[in-house]
């Protein structure tokens, strides 16, 4: 893909347009090299380099946010508002995930590798969102997948290995499906660039077109964890460590949803198939099945895993109406950001007490720590979409966009699903909030106290949780400012 480097005039400028991505790459390479020459107990340096690269990347992306949309490297790499949002959110989320993972990774012999892989996955995610060409989309899919396979099984324990295997097999299968889809679209039109596809696809043969649409959507749906290619989500989330689960369920989703958004706006906009309806059905299935499956979960990670599946459903509502209403892009921008923050916060709550896997264990472990419970309540109610959190604004915007795009039935379904989701989030909130009261009211029952003593509390996740809770409230209240910055006009 990077063939034109150097040879063409202005290639330097084009490379400069990719400064945020280059910074991430630089951070990954630099971190890897630094890690090789750094003793085990000073590995925090690598972490600092990686976090600094993420922040610098986000800053570089923020600087060029208001610029007019451009396409670089033979129009394969699109830099516009959508890319800008994804660049910022992914880079910052990756930084948060690195910090979040620091507690469980500290002292680990392969700590550097984990941090570098997280950066590379983030780079792949941004590439997904920025792809203006089917081949780049495939390459980005691989770059956003392969580091994650390694991360999923990073602990090298039995559940992690099983999770990785499942993740890898499913990823490989969907990857093939996606390539078949891309091949079909190339067969139908003879091109891979989105702008040409947009003009040629409306005349393409229906069978090839259908195969292509299904394949490509399967690919982005897999990265997003949408139904029906979501089966890896609960197993990977529950099999890996909480910090890695936070990364895997947050970062690739952002790029995948943005990639789906771009596909619907550009190449698939004028096709004779009702692609928006297909996406709407995917959205409906994701939110419904995700919620239904989450109902009876007692493992906090599995509960959150299914919750992320249902959240993808709401995100895909904005994708379904992409290009059909002006509200779609702001809706996507605010929901993606809010989801990333809130989801990281919820997983941070799990990572704070890594030994507590069930809801009751978690409540017992957090019992003494009132502020952790408060922040968890904010994050979980945030995922429900309770005002004034960011996801609430996102939900309002997504609902308005979907209705405006002619999908009123989906809005009603999403509202019903939101109520349903409240039920299982409350299953976690109620014992957690109750656990706070038991010691405050009684104090003398030694039974729960002895349970608490054995638990370790990790600092970095607790800090992350509090920051996420505050950030989701701040973004909810300041959503107007955020939207004015990322979606000007």
């Amino acid at each position: 893909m990077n063939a034109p480097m150097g040879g063409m005039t202005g290639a330097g400028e084009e490379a400069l347009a990719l400064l945020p991505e280059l910074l991430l790459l630089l951070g990954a390479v630099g971190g890897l090299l630094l890690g090789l020459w750094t003793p085990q107990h000073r590995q925090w340096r690598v972490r600092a380099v990686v976090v600094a690269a993420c922040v610098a990347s986000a800053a570089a992306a923020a600087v060029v946010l208001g610029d007019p949309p451009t396409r670089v490297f033979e129009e394969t790499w699109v830099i516009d508002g959508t890319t800008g949002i994804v660049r910022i959110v992914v880079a910052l989320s990756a930084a948060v995930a690195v910090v979040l993972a620091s507690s469980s990774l500290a002292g680990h012999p392969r700590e550097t590798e984990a941090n570098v892989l997280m950066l590379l996955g983030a780079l792949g995610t941004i590439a997904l969102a920025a792809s203006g060409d089917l081949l780049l989309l495939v390459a980005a899919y691989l770059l956003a997948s392969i580091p994650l396979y390694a991360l999923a099984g990073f602990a090298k324990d039995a559940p992690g290995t099983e999770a990785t295997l499942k993740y890898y097999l499913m990823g490989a299968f969907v990857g093939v499906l996606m390539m078949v889809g891309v091949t079909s679209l190339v067969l139908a039109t003879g091109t891979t660039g989105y702008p040409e596809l947009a003009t040629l696809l409306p005349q393409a043969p229906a069978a090839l077109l259908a195969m292509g649409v299904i394949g490509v959507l399967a690919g982005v749906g897999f990265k997003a964890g949408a139904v029906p290619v979501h089966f890896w989500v609960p197993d990977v989330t529950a099999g890996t460590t909480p910090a890695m689960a936070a990364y895997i369920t947050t970062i690739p989703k952002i790029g995948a949803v943005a990639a789906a958004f771009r596909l619907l706006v550009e190449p698939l906009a004028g096709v004779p198939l009702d692609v928006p309806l297909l996406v709407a059905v995917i959205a409906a299935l994701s939110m419904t099945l995700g919620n239904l499956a989450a109902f009876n979960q007692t493992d906090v990670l599995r509960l959150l895993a299914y919750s992320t599946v249902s959240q993808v459903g709401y995100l895909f509502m904005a994708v379904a109406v992409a290009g059909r209403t002006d509200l779609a892009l702001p809706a996507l921008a605010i929901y993606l950001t809010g989801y990333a923050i809130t989801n990281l916060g919820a997983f941070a709550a799990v990572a704070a007490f890594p030994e507590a896997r069930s809801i009751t264990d978690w409540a017992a472990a957090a019992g003494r720590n009132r502020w952790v419970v408060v922040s968890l309540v904010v994050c979980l109610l945030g995922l429900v979409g309770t005002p004034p959190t960011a996801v609430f604004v996102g939900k309002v915007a997504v609902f308005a966009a979907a209705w405006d795009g002619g999908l009123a039935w989906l809005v009603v379904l999403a509202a019903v699903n939101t109520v349903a989701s409240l039920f299982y989030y409350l299953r976690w909130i109620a014992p957690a909030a109750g656990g706070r009261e038991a010691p405050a009211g009684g104090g003398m029952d030694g039974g729960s106290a002895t349970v608490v003593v054995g638990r370790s509390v990790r600092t970095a996740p607790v800090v992350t949780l509090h920051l996420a809770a505050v950030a989701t409230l701040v973004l909810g209240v300041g959503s107007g400012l955020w939207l004015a910055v990322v979606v000007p006009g």
Partner: protein
Amino acid sequence: MLLTVVVLLPLAAAALLLAVPALAGRAAIWVWIAASAADLALVAWMWWRYDPGQGATGVVGNLAYEVDLRWIPTVDAGYHIGVDGLSLPLLALTGVLFLACAVWSLREPDRPRAQAALFLFLQTACLGTFAALDLILFFVFFDLTIVGMYFVIAGWGHDHARRSALKFFLYTFVGSLALLVGFIGLFLGSEERTFDMVALAANPPLTDSPLAAGLVLLAIGLGLAVKTPLFPFHTWLPDAHTDAPAAGSAILAGILLKLGTYGFVRIAMPILPDAWQRWAMVVVVVGVISVLWGAFVALAQTNVKRMIAYTSVNHMGYVLLGLGAAGLVGQADAEARTIATVGALYQMVGHGLLTGALFLLSGVLWSRGRTYAFDSWGGLARPAPVFAALLAVAAFGSLGLPGFASFIAEFQIFTGALQAAPVATVLAVTGILVTAGLFLVALQRLLTGPTAVPSVGEDSGSDDGDAGDVAPSSRPTEGGATATALRRRPATGMRDVHGPELGAVVPLLVLAVLLGLFPRALLDVIEPAAAAVAQLVAR
């Protein structure tokens, strides 16, 4: 600016309470009282300076203390708050009732720091809902009241508090999402694509598509009906009330139910006038069914608190009857419709004061005997004459005796509605008879006859326990109420209403009487806004 301070002051006090650990025990309650009192003083100042104007004003113009800041320009949602004749009485009611609950909580502090912070948070949410002039802002505060009340019931309730709280949360959350869908419908249906209530009321959306307007009204009506609550969406109410703490019940019935009825007056009527006119008869019918259903089911209750809860359904039914009648433009003249609206608004204030007092008094029963069952109590007039007197006053006020606020309200509702919906009004009047009967029966059971007080060992209502943060005697699991319920003690053992309890209940009843004797003070504020609503509906 002043209004912003009024809305956010309780929240700031809550943050202070949580941030300063030294404010534990009774000090937390005193901070709460001080914050609520200061807030009420500010509302009183606002009322003093408020000029209701002449003729029909408010709703779409002449809004006092208005603040309009951009918040989410993409969907034109803003921080738009203001006060008119619809919201000012309810803001004042919120201030009064929360102060009463603060004073009440001096009685037996139970984890007072968290409790005070939660109630102050709830107060901000309630004030914000009444002050909001933007649909999204309204929804934000509206939803926060649900969250706050969930934790009040789950954390401080008794018996099946967890389950009732969950039921409350799920039911009202369903309602609030229906409301949200309706709001989005209004947004998309409006010409200028805005969530601003004033702009929407000035230029109503969806006027050219009756079907869409009807569906949007259905969504909004559903959301508000759950909150109000109207038959058949009232089933969460008795459970929530029965298991909530006394102060929580008082707020739930006194303020939170008003959020529903207020939503009808503030949003449904002025913004969807066509649809409201078209479906006004349905509103009237639902109102009358609620009146009768609430009254008859209340009559059958064996639990004091459940009975009071069902009378709330009954009283909110009157409000809907009045508001529905205000929409029957073809059948009634402007004056009658205005009177019906005024009555509905007056009923909100009157019901808030009286039901708040009734629920606080039922809390006296719980603290003395850990049960609300009618058959556990009897002849309380002898050991507790003050309690008996207060209960009698509150009950007579609630059944609509002349001299109380409810009488003014119900009289105006019936007067205004009679012309437009005579059959419905006559049916609703029979509801008054049933309520009168049930309150008299309740008084008779509780206050007369041989004295019976359930024995629960110690009198946990005493405040010399100096409980501080730990109040073991008030743990919800304590003292199996059902086991002790039937053991009667022919004792004179009930401690009468005293100290903070008096300080909380008496002002509410005094206000209810004052509003019954001198209605002008409130009517002067309400009437112009009610006239404006009646005019806007008739468009």
